[in-house]
Structure formats: C-alpha cells, structure tokens
C-alpha cells in the first residue's frame, strides 16, 4: 500500500562532486512496509519558488535492520540540488513505495545487472534481492571516470563486479556495451538502468542475442501514482501507458526503442 510519510535524514554523504547517498528513516519510527527493487519514492521539495513538483528517486536500498531507505542522488538541477543540500536531522516527505518491480529470473538463470552512472541506484536493491533469493547476480557498472562508480563495496558483497570507465581510470576503458563480459559470457537475463542511449544500446544487444532484458525508465513524473497521465510511454500494442504505475520497469521488447 502506498503512503505519504515524513522521514528524517540519518545520513547524507557526498560520494563524488555530483552524487550523494542519503539515508532516511520514518520520523515516528513507523516500520517500513514491504518494498520491491525497482520501486521509487516521490520526494517533496519543501517551499521552493522554482521547484513545484515532487522528484522521483529510485529506492537504492532497503535496510530492514535500521528501518532505513537509501537514496542515491545525482545533483543535476534545482530539485536534486535542494534535496542533496539537506542536513542530517532534517525532514523529507515521501510518497512510497511507487511503481512496479523487476521480474525475477527463472530458477538457475544467470543475470547481469548493468548500470550507468547514478543508474546503478535501483540495481543495488535488486542485486541484494536476487542474492537473498539464491541467485548469483553479476554487475557491470559504467561511468565517465572512477569517480562515477559509487557503492562498489556494497556491490562486491553481492557478486562479481565488472567496471568500465570512459577515461580508463578504473576497470576497462570504454562504454559498458563494449565490455568483454558481454561477448564472452552468455546471460539469461539483463537488468539495466542508466542514461537512455546506454539502455537503448543494451536493449539492442539483448535483442540481437535473444536475452530477456528489463530497463528502468525515467520519464518526467508530476504525480507518480497514475493520476496525471503525464509520464506516458508509447508501448507496443498497448499505446500510451503510465510509466509511474505500469513501470518504471519494462521489458525492452515492449518499448519502441530499437525498430
């Protein structure tokens, strides 16, 4: 069940120039409901003249023990700037959990989770879930430079991690789509989140190699729960549907990206 709740910021760490990891816990210590990887929250930016609408952010991790939600945030504009400027102890009002989730692989299927930049956000939670369920997820993380690779330690606890950077400062030099793992190994299922051109390239690779592929979309979302019909994606056969309720996770077969 979706809810609106006040949280308190318990930690706000700057991971690099633009990326922040914020941890929040319900203000009145309410126990958090069931949340699923791929789901997101809508963050209220309080009393700003330029930011009127909430901002959607993926659930980066759900820390049951500490009753915390983690948000991995890239400061790209007014809203994310306001959010990442908040200090420990300050309030954050969230609508959550919103959206659908990734589908689980079949038994014994191999999985690769491909994230670009801050697009790795939902993949940590997904990786943890897969690993908890007995899968052995592998990760392919890409960025412009080593600075863009966040939460490496956390990922390494969950499975094998491949890295590419455009400037070669960490892992393989180049784009994620050129990483040798994609050639050498055969995965049954790919999950991806990141810049749209990256996701399209991966969707194409998956289609060419007959691999099931799911991607997380980032359409603009005024409401986040199916009320405004502004976040639509034109999906094969089904036409304009809401990304916030029927997504944000889609099988790339359904998207009009590659034909």
């Amino acid at each position: 069940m979706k809810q609106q709740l006040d949280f308190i910021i318990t930690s706000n760490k700057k991971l690099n120039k633009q990326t922040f990891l914020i941890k929040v816990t319900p203000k009145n210590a309410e126990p958090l409901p069931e949340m699923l990887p791929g789901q997101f929250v809508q963050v209220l930016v309080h009393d700003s003249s330029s930011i009127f609408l909430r901002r959607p952010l993926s659930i980066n991790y759900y820390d049951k023990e500490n009753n915390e939600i983690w948000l991995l945030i890239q400061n790209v504009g007014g809203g994310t700037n306001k959010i990442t400027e908040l200090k420990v102890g300050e309030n954050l009002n969230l609508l959550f959990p919103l959206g659908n989730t990734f589908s689980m692989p079949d038994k014994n299927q191999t999985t690769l989770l491909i994230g670009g930049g801050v697009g790795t956000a939902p993949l940590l939670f997904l990786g943890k879930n897969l690993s908890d369920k007995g899968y052995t997820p592998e990760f392919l993380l890409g960025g412009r430079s080593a600075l863009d690779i966040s939460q490496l330690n956390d990922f390494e606890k969950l499975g094998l991690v491949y890295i590419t950077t455009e400037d070669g400062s960490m892992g393989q030099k180049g784009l994620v789509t050129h990483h040798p793992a994609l050639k050498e190994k055969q995965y049954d299922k790919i999950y991806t989140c990141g810049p749209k051109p990256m996701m399209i390239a991966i969707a194409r690779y998956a289609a060419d190699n007959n691999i099931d592929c799911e991607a997380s979309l980032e359409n603009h979302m005024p409401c986040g729960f199916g009320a405004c019909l502004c976040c639509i994606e034109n999906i094969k056969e089904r036409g304009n549907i809401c990304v916030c309720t029927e997504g944000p996770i889609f099988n790339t077969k359904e998207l009009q990206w590659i034909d």
Partner: protein
Amino acid sequence: MDRLKVKIGDLELKNPVMTASGTFGYGTEYSDFMDLSRLGGIFVKGTTLEPRQGNDYPRMAETPSGMLNSVGLQNKGVHYFVSDIYPKIKEYDTHIIVNVSGSTIEDYIGCTEALVGLDKIPAIELNISCPNVKEGGMAFGTSCVSAAQVVKAVRKVYDKTLIVKLSPNVTDIAEIALAVEAEGADCVSLVNTFLGMAIDAEKRKPKLSTITGGLSGPCIKPIALRMVWQVYNAVKIPIIGMGGISNWKDAIEFILAGSHAIQVGTYNFINPSVSVEIVDGILNYLDRHNIDSISDLIGKLDY
C-alpha cells in the same frame, strides 16, 4: 458535519470540497493516501465518446508555482467507462461526477447519453474549456454563441444536474456564464487551465510536444479568484470554484468570492491528501469564527 452541506442543483454535497477532473484519476489512485468518503465529490477524468490516445510525450512542464500539461484527454471512451470503470467506483461513499469532453456537439451528446442512465452519477461536468485538443474543446468555451449551443444540446438529453466548466481564456467570463445559465445549466465550474507555453532556452524547443498547454497550480489562483467573483456578481446559479487551491485558506477565499463548492486540482499531486486536510481546515475555520454553516460564507466578501 451538516455545517458543511451545500446544494448544487439537485446534488447534495456532504461538504464543499471536491477534486478536479484530470487530476484525480478515478479516485482509486488516491485511495491508499486518504479516505475518499470524506470528499464532497470526485470529478473523474475527462471522458469522450470515442477512446483517445492523448498527445505525445512530453506532456508536462514545470513553471513557477505551477505546471503546464497537454495530456489531451487521454481516456478509453465513455463506453469503456460505463462497462469497466463505473462498476468498480460506483460504491464510493461520495458523489462521482463525470467530466464530459468532446470535439463536436454530437460527441458531447453521445457521451452524455451514455451516462444519463447511470444511477450513481448524479451530475456531469461539461468541459467546454479544454485547451489541449485540436478541435472543439476550448473553442466552445470562448464564445457565448458556441457555449450556449453545446449546453442547449446537452440540456435536452440530460435531466440531472448539469455543471458547465468554463474557460478562463476569455475577455469576459461573466458573459459566457450568463449564456450557459440562460440555456439551463444548473451550475458553472471555473476555471479550467490557462493556455500557456514553455520553452527550453538551451535546446530552443518548446517543452511540450503540443507547443502550448494548460497552466494550473497556485500561480493562477489570483486570476481564478477574480473570475469567480465576477461570475458570482453576474449569475444566479451556484459556482464551483477552482484554480490553484492548495490549502483551506485558499478554499475559504474561493467561497468568500462566491463559490458554493471548490475543486482541488494540481495540488493533489504534491500532497495527495490535501483535499481532506482542506475539509478539516474549513471546519476549524467555522469553529474559530463562530460560523454555523458554510452557506453563511458563500459570497460574503466584506467590501
């Protein structure tokens, strides 16, 4: 709670707080966040005779204290509404009012006829003011003659409470209100969105696929409030006021300006339970000011 009761045509509302069409889905979208039965009524999505895909993405641009949308009346058509949606929502313990939209007078008539027989739809809101469709839509609402025509035609086939939603994109909204009152509208609701535009300076492109769209949110409140007051001073039928309402204070302002009831639109996206908070806020206001009934406030601006 009788202190909050108001009457609009044959429609008795338990309180004057309702939610605006196109911002509240079919109510179900909000049921996790609030108790729908606490609302005076729910205006469901703009519904047309035929299904509509709406406009292309992007359909939204954020603006100072507001937003532009160009959804373009995406909906599955009135027949799907009757067969698939109505059965799921008709048990709500609040009034459900359908926002009837169209491109031709025949569309409006057809859509209305499909709804008139539904027991639990006590009223329709005739949307002659949608700025986001190529034909018809807003055009009907921007001249007295065409506004009167649609209302006359629909009035013939609809004997329940007929609310007509006016466009703010006009020189003299009171004139249009008078024209639809003369054709037998039971109530006017105002305002729909203002035609606006947003440009991405860096890309040198419009931000909306449709170039222009409808502006809503707190930014339009002062203009909407003035229009309600002008219409209140012109017509005898009740008014449902809206435009940028985001808290109980705004609601009281619209009531003082002459609204029998109000609708909350865009602000539902920011705070999905704002409408029930407004109900509470109004009650509290009546208490603080020692006012028996909300009807004692309608149009009671002191000047």
